């Protein structure tokens, strides 16, 4: 159980930010780590009253507040129309409805967790992270940044014409995934994201141009094989590196076939 002395519902982002500059203070999102940790803090900073719980959609983009829950992503018509339900597919097996009513997009992305379905699917889109002080950075860049004392306020998804497919392998349906895979096609570019390697998700593009003649059984097979040689995998209780490397090929092939309408 996490313990702390003080709880502050921040009145604005500036207050939240200044409180967060101390190492013993911490911002809370969905708070699902509350019973899992054993550390103690001075002040916990709640940003749930700052209007960060909205999904704004216009012609250009989705701007999703950090406190939007996974359940809201799962059931949001605009996002799922845009992604061909890939977002719904990516989050629907995360523990249960009650959990997804609490877990926030901001918390999921900020954590840059290895097992994250959410990170995987958003990395396959044209996604940006809006930081209170750091401004807007691409998700791909954000994932590589060190954790600091800034505040993630929004996730921005640009509405490029998109095709997107998501899949994951789980030993048990609502467990952490053994491997996640999202593929997308935007502006003629195919992106593959592999997560739960078990380290955090990585984005791969078709650098060698194996898919430039189009998505065919043959080109996909060659690409998936090549991809598997590039994706570093590791072992944990849910699977060995060797198994994960096999899954990279299987999921990439299957998702790309779906992307190319071959299934």
């Amino acid at each position, binding site marked *: 159980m996490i313990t702390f002395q003080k709880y502050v519902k921040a009145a604005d982002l500036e207050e939240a930010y200044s409180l967060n500059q101390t190492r013993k203070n911490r911002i809370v999102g969905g708070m699902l780590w509350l019973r899992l940790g054993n550390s103690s803090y001075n002040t916990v900073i709640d940003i749930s009253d700052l209007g960060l719980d909205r999904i704004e959609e216009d012609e250009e983009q989705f701007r999703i507040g950090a406190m939007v829950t996974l359940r809201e992503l799962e059931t949001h018509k605009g996002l799922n129309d845009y992604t061909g339900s890939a977002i719904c597919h990516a989050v629907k*097996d995360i523990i249960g409805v009650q959990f997804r009513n609490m877990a926030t997009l901001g918390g999921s992305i900020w954590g840059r967790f290895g097992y994250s379905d959410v990170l995987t699917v958003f990395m396959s889109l044209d996604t940006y992270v809006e930081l209170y002080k750091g401004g807007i950075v691409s998700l791909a860049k954000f994932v590589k940044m060190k954790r600091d004392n800034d505040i993630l306020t929004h996730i921005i998804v640009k509405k490029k014409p998109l095709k997107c497919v998501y899949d994951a392998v789980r*030993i048990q349906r*609502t467990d952490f995934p*053994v491997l996640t895979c999202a593929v997308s096609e935007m502006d003629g570019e195919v992106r593959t994201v592999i997560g739960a390697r078990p380290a955090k998700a990585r984005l791969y593009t078709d650098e060698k141009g194996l898919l430039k003649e189009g998505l065919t059984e043959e080109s996909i097979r060659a690409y998936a094989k090549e991809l598997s040689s590039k994706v570093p995998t590791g072992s944990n209780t849910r699977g060995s590196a060797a198994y994960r490397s096999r899954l990279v090929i299987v999921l990439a092939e*299957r998702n790309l076939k779906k992307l190319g309408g071959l299934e």
Partner: protein
Amino acid sequence: MEQKNYKAINKSVRKKDAMQLLLGKPVYTEDIAPKDALVVKLLRSSHANAIVNTIDTKVAKLVPGVVDVFTWEDVPNERYTTAGQTYPEASPYDRLIIDRHVRCVGDVVAIVAAESEKAANKALKTIKVNYEVLEPVLDFRTAKDNSILVHPEDNWVAPCEVGGTNKRNLVASENSEYGDVDKVLADCDIVLDRTYHTKAYNQAMMETFRTYTSYDRYGRLHVISSTQIVFHVRRILAHALGIPKNMIRVEKPRIGGGFGAKQTAVSEVYPAFVTMKTGRPAMLVFTREEAQIAGSPRHEMDVRVKLGANKDGKIRVLDLYTLSNSGAYGEHGPTTVGLSGHKSIPMYTGSLEAHRFNYDVVYTNTMAAGAYRGYGATQGIFALETTVNELAEMLNMDPTVIREKNMLKEGMLMPAYYNEIASACALDKCLAHCKEMFEWDKRYPVRDMGNGKVRAAGLGMAMQGSCISNLDVGSATVKLNDDGSYNLVIGAADMGTGCDTILAQMVAECMDCTVDDVTVFGADTDASPYDSGSYASSTTYITGKAVEKACEELKKKMSEVAAGLLDCSSDEIVFEGKTLRKINSGESVTVAEVGVKSQLNNDIITQASASHSSPVSPPPYMVGMVEIELDKMTGEVKVIDFMSVVDCGIPINPALARIQAEGGIVQGIGHTLFENITYNEMGRPVESSLMQYRIPTRLDMGNLKVEFEHSFEPTGPFGAKSIGEIVINTPAPAIAHAIYRATGVWHREIPITPEQIVMGKPDN
């Protein structure tokens, strides 16, 4: 078959506590304990094998809110067992309340009693322990005669001769043979020699172990605990604490599931000790982590099967050797292992010429095992049924056909089952019924679904017992009230299964009243008649029979009272449910009038108690068939349909029997596909939470269908046998079979994970 038109038996009535439970009323241990009870927390060892050199509790005792801290220096030095079993206690006396020598990760090193959980947790962090760390024995295959002894102590006691000795890490050992096994094996066309491995699955009942203790108004220790065994808990506490049994009262409120876990006194002794030392009410609630790493899980087993058969599929000889891992302590070690042979081999009585069953049960420095639904039979049946499936596949014979050739049938003498006769056995009908319901002939062939997915089917048979013959005692008291209603008082424990209700149905049937006319109370060592408790599938069969007997006795007493009112002899009274009539006359009195009379100038008590034990333990039988869809590329297995047919004799309450079956099947699916217990190299359990120990959700089980074949067990109440345990036994062999059909690989260890399926190679 004897079948009557019952009024209350074989009826799906609601559980008596259903609405209270569904409306969330405060009926469990933690709900009824007073808020000012001391919070008890346990400091647990992080080493698998170590001696506590020094333990410093000075700072902990100074934490505000901490009332006291106890260590090995404070507890009695008399060893005891926490296994909840009847006399003579089969499990060794190998525990102390706190032992200086810790023998597994999670062993208790200190007990903290505090005014609040926060204070108790804070105190735990400040206790300083200096350990002399010893090398542990973690692999149960190397435990026997290992130079490292889990229990080197001299005050280790085996109250029963079960072939064990602490000087060899041996909890128990036995050899038994019928016929000349080696000779028949030598004469067989085919001999399969296979070894199977099953894990120490956790029961994972939703309510973890918990106990509340206080001194009652007579200065006795009052224990309210989530337990299946109130009388055994009283005995265990008296032994462990060194106080007389009559100074202890144990009762159970509603219980949030048990499945055998609560057939061991896992949590009771610690708050009881705190109450004794401080005089204050105390409560211990296990965290889920504690329940996972210091509970009372299934015995991990290796079961080696040697099966000899002829080419025509006749199974002639079975030779089983089981190695069972009891973990750090011996609870239920000597007894669970027996079922791996005694409740698997008899299924092939139809053709067996000889059989042998040997076993060893060993200590290791891992979590102590205990009782879990199926109790050894589950492990043995997975091994034997998988071997029989392999034989069938090898002979290109339909696995249902090979069973028809060899299986046990009604009326047969079972040499592998204590020479009992299968007096009620519809196993053959279960198989035929399941085969038709499942459409076996259509689903058995493997079907390619495209995209790497195949559908395949598999099956398993099972048996269990209905009590522990010649040991278990069930009792019931039935009393008449002045409004004509009845009280049933029992010592058996309804842990959610609905035994309160089915026993009330039996009273209603006997007394020709409605189930609503019967209230049930139990279990409380001060008020209930003695009952071994709810385990070994025995409550319906044993306590049920006691209910029947008590009702007969009560009718006699009521007839005597009625005779007084009607001025005749009691032989002239006919009991007619609502009334008692004088034979050959229109004169009668109502049951309520008899009840009123019993409270007015009366010297005949309208209350009766009866006990019952049985010389036999009639097996229930079951056939389970599964269809899976297996993804050959990822190894994922999806259960499509699990169908089964059960012979539990006459089901007293078909709805509750069906739920028992469905619940057991889903637990079995979990064990087969993903539930697992593993240890790191230091001996620390890895699956220490429900985040890591995955139990099935409603997305993991496919569609279930359960039907019944009735047999009539002459020694059971209203023809009933048992249902509680057998239901967990068929998923493992059935699913392993289906996976073989889909992949050509036999997996002989469960769980069978997607990775093992993808990476698995066929053996020679």
